[in-house]
């Protein structure tokens, strides 16, 4: 099979091992959550597995100057066997638990959606294994480094183009020399498994990322008590989205991995706030840890958009008697931080950069001057989101679903915390994306269409989560006590 079997093994072993570990950590006493937790752990396990594989390659190169791929694969095999012995997943089957009967029409739709999903994944699989690295960003940034490291057998340094001419011998030039290396290491992991640099097959992990994203959405929706037929309908919507399909078929961009990482974070927060499920904490931690490792700058926008939910999640994680103390500590900490980092009109944020106010002009790190030009982004946004078919009808349906969500929220008493969190999340994303897209630094890429779709891809699973929640016909009073961390 010329390395293909090893490649499949190199994807499956980390995936299964990490998923089993995460599933053990996510385990709850509620039988209703079993399938959902399997899906969540498989979705997040893939991301964790690829990250750890990349970390092993990096560590090997740092310590021994080479990649030690076979040792890493052997380690994964041992880890899988050890995890199987430790977790004994075959013993977790609960004979007393019988799932509720499903009406025949729902079974029909389940079958239909499963068929459609299988067909789409087949179609994407054919495409990904036949396209010779066609994506621009892939071959000028991510795959370029991986291909080079594969042939050199070591992590050669990259320097900015302007310094390459005077850089020490062995340095390579790249406009994106400062970008994180995780995505390149994933390409490298695939190439080392194949034993050769195959321009198409090194992108196979991207198909896995698409499947992991679908599993994460499935798990998140089922954890929120959405019926299986509607959940699969949502997964079908996600996997049939043209913009997502092309990110898988014309693989090699970092955006799919960022979408997967952001989905862990946002779904983790929503599940934690809605029902305080232990699985949610794992997702939040994985999302927070992986976001900065994937793509430069964008993670800041995504983190900022989730910050209201993050603060809420931290607040409810603290026992009630300690909350006042936490609030006071937070205020004192903020004042201290400002006192130490505020000078003249600049606020220095460690790692991120400076926030400054110059002549009534606010300057933010990564965004530059805040001078949004909303008029200029209206036409390209309308064209790309509503007229072209990159999104099918997702944005129109999302707007409609948000309306239903607000009506449902206003009618409920007591209010469903997930619905409140969803509304906050949508509002913060809308505000921050509008500010970012309309800022002078980003605006040219919105007008020429190179960023508008990719930049919004991260939100696609969240939007489908919103749609499916708005359409959920079953009224479920979530029994928090049954699924709370014990």
């Amino acid at each position, binding site marked *: 099979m010329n390395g293909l079997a090893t490649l499949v093994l190199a994807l499956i072993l980390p995936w299964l091992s990490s998923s089993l570990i995460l599933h053990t950590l996510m385990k709850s006493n509620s039988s209703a959550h079993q399938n959902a937790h399997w899906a969540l752990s498989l979705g997040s396990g893939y991301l964790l597995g690829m990250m750890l594989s990349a970390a092993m390659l990096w560590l090997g190169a740092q310590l021994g100057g080479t990649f030690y791929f076979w040792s890493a694969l052997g380690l994964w095999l041992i880890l899988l066997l050890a995890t199987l012995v430790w977790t004994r997943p075959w013993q977790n089957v609960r004979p007393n638990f019988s799932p509720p009967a499903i009406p025949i029409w729902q079974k029909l739709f389940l079958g239909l959606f499963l068929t459609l999903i299988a067909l789409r994944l087949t179609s994407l699989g054919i495409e990904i294994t036949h396209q010779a690295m066609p994506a621009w960003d892939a071959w000028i940034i991510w795959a370029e480094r991986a291909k080079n490291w594969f042939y050199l057998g070591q992590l050669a340094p990259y320097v900015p183009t302007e310094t390459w001419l005077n850089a020490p011998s062995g340095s390579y030039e790249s406009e994106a020399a400062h970008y994180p290396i995780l995505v390149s290491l994933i390409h490298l992991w695939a190439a080392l498994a194949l034993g050769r640099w195959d321009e198409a097959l090194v992108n196979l992990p991207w198909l896995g990322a698409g499947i992991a994203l679908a599993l994460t959405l499935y798990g998140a929706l089922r954890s929120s008590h959405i019926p299986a037929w509607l959940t699969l309908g949502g997964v079908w919507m996600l996997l049939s989205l043209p913009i997502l399909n092309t990110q898988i078929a014309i693989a090699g961009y970092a955006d799919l991995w960022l979408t997967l990482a952001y989905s862990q974070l946002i779904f983790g927060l929503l599940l934690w706030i809605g029902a305080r499920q232990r699985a949610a904490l794992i997702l939040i931690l994985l999302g927070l840890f992986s976001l900065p490792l994937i793509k430069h700058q964008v993670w800041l926008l995504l983190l900022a958009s989730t910050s209201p939910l993050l603060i809420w999640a931290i607040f409810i994680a603290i026992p009630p008697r300690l909350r006042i103390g936490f609030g006071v500590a937070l205020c004192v900490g903020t004042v201290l931080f400002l006192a130490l980092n505020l000078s003249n009109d600049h606020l220095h944020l460690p790692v991120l950069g400076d926030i400054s106010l110059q002549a009534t002009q606010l300057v933010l790190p990564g965004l530059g001057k805040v001078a949004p030009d909303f008029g200029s982004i209206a036409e390209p946004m309308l064209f790309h989101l509503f007229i072209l*078919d990159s*999104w099918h*009808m997702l944005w129109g349906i999302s707007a409609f679903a948000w309306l239903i969500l607000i009506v449902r929220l206003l009618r409920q008493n007591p209010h469903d915390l997930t619905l409140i969190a969803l509304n906050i999340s949508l509002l913060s994303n809308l505000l921050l994306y509008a500010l970012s897209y309309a800022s002078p630094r980003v605006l040219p890429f919105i007008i020429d269409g190179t960023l508008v779709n990719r930049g919004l891809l991260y939100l696609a699973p969240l939007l489908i989560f919103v749609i499916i929640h708005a359409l959920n016909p079953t009224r479920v009073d979530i029994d928090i006590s049954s699924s709370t961390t014990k």
Partner: protein
Amino acid sequence: MPKSTLHTVILFALSVLLGFFFTQAILASALSLRGLHSSIQWQPNQLNTLHKKTDLLILDIKPIPPDIQLEHYNRLSIRGARLDPTQMSFKITQLNGITQELNASTDSTTEHVIFPLASTGTLHALQLTLHGERHEGSSILHIDLEPHPASFSLANLHAGYKALWQAWLSREGLNVYSAHFVVGGEKASYISSPSLAGVLWLVLSVLFGWVLTRRHATVEVQLTALALLILLIWSLVDLRWQRDLWLEHSKSIDTSASAATHAIDLQAERIQRVLPKETQRVFILSAKPFDRLRLRYALLPHNSHAEAGTLEQLSPQLHRDDHLVLVLPLPGINTNLAHNQIYAGTTTLEVKALLAEARLAVVKVLAVNPNNAKPSHIPRPTDLEPRP
């Protein structure tokens, strides 16, 4: 199945059908009111002289866009100054070879000459003939092929309906701006976008469904119906994308998403064969940044610089034993590989040719002469082409 549920299902199915019918009616009406075709304009620099005498001038108008159906247009017109309508005529040639001569209408003026058009078929060629001596100061600003004016008529409605289906069934290729396919019908018309049609169909179906079932369907049933409605219309809109994805599989490497990069990858294979493995620095020069960067990727692990667009930008950095990859032709650079020299402005490179093709050369730099010293061999025009 309970009778009330069956009743609701039938009413929702009816709503979907009504929604579809009204969606088409609304969009076809909008198209017919907006007009289906935009005018085509040619500027004076697109008029090429075919025949010129003191009393006769024949001008060929180029380019003619493909698939111009004459039945969609009702006249040709010329805007200009001091024009004489009696001395002007157009000759139209259709794709099937039929020709027709058009004379100016009587309502033409010296600033605006109009030629009524009543032809059918595909436009292939267009010539403007000016008889007699030209008036001093006469000039042409532009020539227009003008479509039938938009109106709400049965014929236009029918044409709009046909155009809608044509747009929904058409297929588009890759977007060069980013890694996604641009789909969605004719970009010229927002109205024919399938996504927009899908949303309109959904909204109308929901409205009809709500009106028809609101008295006897519970909120739960209505939400279930709404979810099924969304998934149904979504899946129908997706059929078009699904077809595009499967059609993509049947494409050859030369027409697929990889086509643009495949040709460069083949060039790189030939370069790799002649480039020594121990090469320290490779400089890639091409007029197109896309070619330079893809070559850099394809030549890995050779350490290449691909950011400079001209040799003069590079020459201060070039050393003996550096290698140059040249994707020809390069503006401002003369390659005389028969005599192992490359000239660019005031720089002369003494080189050793490793590969010399009509559009590709690989050389090893032996010496860089950035002064104004005359090259040892003055190139003659025949020397400028690289050896085959």
